[in-house]
């Protein structure tokens, strides 16, 4: 293997990335752009909801109740409803997320210390939002009603539970999701490599490469080197956005992050190289990467719900994705401040994946030439 020829291939590929501003953006900058876009889903943790209120009591107290519910702006009263038909129409058209019906005698009942019933109608087509809406309505209502208890019961003794969330004390989803999304957006360089590789086959420039003295190892290593370098720039950009723009705490070593980022890029590129070996056109390469790598990364790699360890099959699927390992590494370095030795296992696994992908790519490549 000649370093000289490898570098020549790498130079050609880097020139391809840099020559056209569009390609440069799509290959190098796009992970940062994607992180910026996707993370906005998780910027606001409060669930905003629009309510329709049907106030049958119309008393000062019922108005105060509505004011208490809407005080901090999480709930907004969109429309006053005056009948169930009206309420139904508003929910059906999606103009409100829920309805609140305050019964007649609300004020009188409360002042007498009697229990009153308030009806809540929710749109269950988004069950997550519906349960959150109910939960925070419940909380506010309990706080509102507390002073009306006839004789405040003196609770003696009892059991107090103190909940703490380590690494992310407010359990903010942005803090947890940004480090988790980084591995997903960093799969773009691997996709670009798979396309660059298939492209030579599709356009036919592959044949002209075969007659040159460039050998398979040099060819693959050169391409890998070019996309790895561009990928490292992406890692840096993505890290800067997470730390400076989204202000996610970073408690580990930045150098280690870069190093393990390269490790992950290597694994994901080995993975996509393996896929690209079986395809002749870029369209099919893309669909295969989408199906085998990108989509499963969203669902099974532990980004939102934890990795499913209930069966051997689901464990195999999850842990054969490079994303699963790097999500753990990324969160470990950002939030837990882990050191090198705690990350040794995922680092070794990623390295193994990269080596395996590269070796099998080479093997299949040789076979095709022979």
């Amino acid at each position, binding site marked *: 293997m000649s370093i000289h020829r490898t570098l020549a291939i790498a130079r050609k590929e880097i020139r391809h990335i840099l020559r056209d501003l569009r*390609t440069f953006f799509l290959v190098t900058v796009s992970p940062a752009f994607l992180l910026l876009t996707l993370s906005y889903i998780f910027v606001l943790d409060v669930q905003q909801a629009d309510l329709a209120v049907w106030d049958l009591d119309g008393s000062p107290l019922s108005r105060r109740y509505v004011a208490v519910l809407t005080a901090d702006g999480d709930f907004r009263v969109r429309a006053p409803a005056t009948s169930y038909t009206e309420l139904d129409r508003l*929910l059906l058209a999606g103009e409100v997320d829920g309805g609140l019906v305050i019964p007649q005698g609300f004020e009188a009942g409360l002042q007498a210390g009697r229990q009153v019933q308030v*009806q*809540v109608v929710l749109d269950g087509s988004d069950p997550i939002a519906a349960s959150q809406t109910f939960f925070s309505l419940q909380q506010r209502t309990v706080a509102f009603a507390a002073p009306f208890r006839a004789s405040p019961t003196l*609770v*003696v003794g009892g059991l107090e539970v103190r*909940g703490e969330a380590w690494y992310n004390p407010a359990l903010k989803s942005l803090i947890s999701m940004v480090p988790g999304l980084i591995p997903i957006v960093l799969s773009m360089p691997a996709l670009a490599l798979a396309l660059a590789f298939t492209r030579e086959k599709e356009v036919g420039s592959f044949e002209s490469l075969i007659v040159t003295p460039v050998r398979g190892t040099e060819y693959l290593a050169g391409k890998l080197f070019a996309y790895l370098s561009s990928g490292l720039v992406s890692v840096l950009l993505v890290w800067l956005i997470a730390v400076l723009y989204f202000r996610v705490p970073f408690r580990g070593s930045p150098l280690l992050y870069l190093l393990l980022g390269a490790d992950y890029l290597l694994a994901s590129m080995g993975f996509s190289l393996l896929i690209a070996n079986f395809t002749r056109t870029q369209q099919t390469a893309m669909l295969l990467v989408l199906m085998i790598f990108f989509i499963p990364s969203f669902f*099974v790699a532990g980004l939102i*719900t934890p990795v499913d360890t209930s069966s051997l099959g689901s464990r195999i699927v999850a842990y054969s994705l490079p994303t699963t390992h790097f999500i753990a590494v990324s969160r470990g370095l950002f939030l837990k401040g882990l050191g090198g030795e705690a990350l040794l296992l995922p680092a070794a696994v990623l390295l193994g994946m990269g080596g395996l992908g590269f070796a099998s790519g080479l093997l299949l490549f040789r076979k095709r030439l022979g």
Partner: protein
Amino acid sequence: MILRILNLVRKEITQLARDRLMTTLIFLVPIVQLLLLAQATGRRIGDLRVAVLDLDRSSVSRQLIAELENREELSVWCFAEDEDHLRDLLDRGEVRVGVIMPQGFARDLADPLRTARVRVVVDGSNSVAGSIALSAASAVFAEYGQERLEALGVSATLLVDLRVETLYNPTYNIRHFAIPAQVGFITFQITLVIASLGLARERELGTLEQLIVSPLSRLELVLGKAVPAFIIGELNFLSIFAIAIHFFHLPLRGSFLLLLGLTSLFIIAEIGWGVIISAIARNQQQAILFVFILAIVDITFSGYLVPVENLPRLLQLIARAVPMYHYLVIIRAVMLKGAALTDLWPHALALGGLGIAILSLSVQGVSRRLD
């Protein structure tokens, strides 16, 4: 004109049919996606591992450990020796929850003048698992505390009782929320891939020149590329929709024809995007990466994962210009709520308007790039 377009359409379809792997993937990718999503949303998050630091070692603390084990969401994994050990277990991700019962816990609980304190520590690095674990573990102790209060004869009824009634999806089935959106997203993906790669591929392989010198006009060229994408988009929608209804038992409470009609509007708008991408992109690599970016932008702005109201104000406005935002409102409302056109006309109108705007932009873009 019609004849020339049909000829181009025939050429496209022959080309596609010849690529076996591609035709298989066009239909396989959506099915795999749907299965993965159904799997991910079908399972309850359970058996999150708990490490217990029991400094009390009393019968009460043992009883509470058994209660923790009984929770579906939790599973007692090991006992921690001290707080450092617990931190180490959480650091390495071996457990997600730590429960610390201090010395004298049972004694404090038995003494009416004292408050027994218990600490629940969760790994917040995954906020979803963290909050589920926190509320499950807290609930175990809260329920136990409640039982004790009731045994002492303290009434705990609420003064204002919220009576909740949940429409459309009373069991809070998360699949009913996720799968209609996925049907929309799959239709979007496949249509966009087919539409955007058409011209980019011809350009890269050098066959575009031949098409340009042929008697085809620019409009005919765009239409000839658009029709196969439209057909594939519709076929994909129909197959995925059928799977959603028959295998995952999703309701269809509204009119199928209304949904099909609005889906066609949506597909046309997305084809417009695809043609714009293939006009901008110089080669397939660029076109494909553009499609990926557009897909992520649409996931963010369409309410696919999180309601659009949760985005910052300015981004909520941008969402109105994304066809998939309107389409997801429509497909969820038609399938789950049984909404009719009279309820949905603002979104239908927006979808149509966006479609026309995007399409005229795309024809312009192509003419400029080809001349």
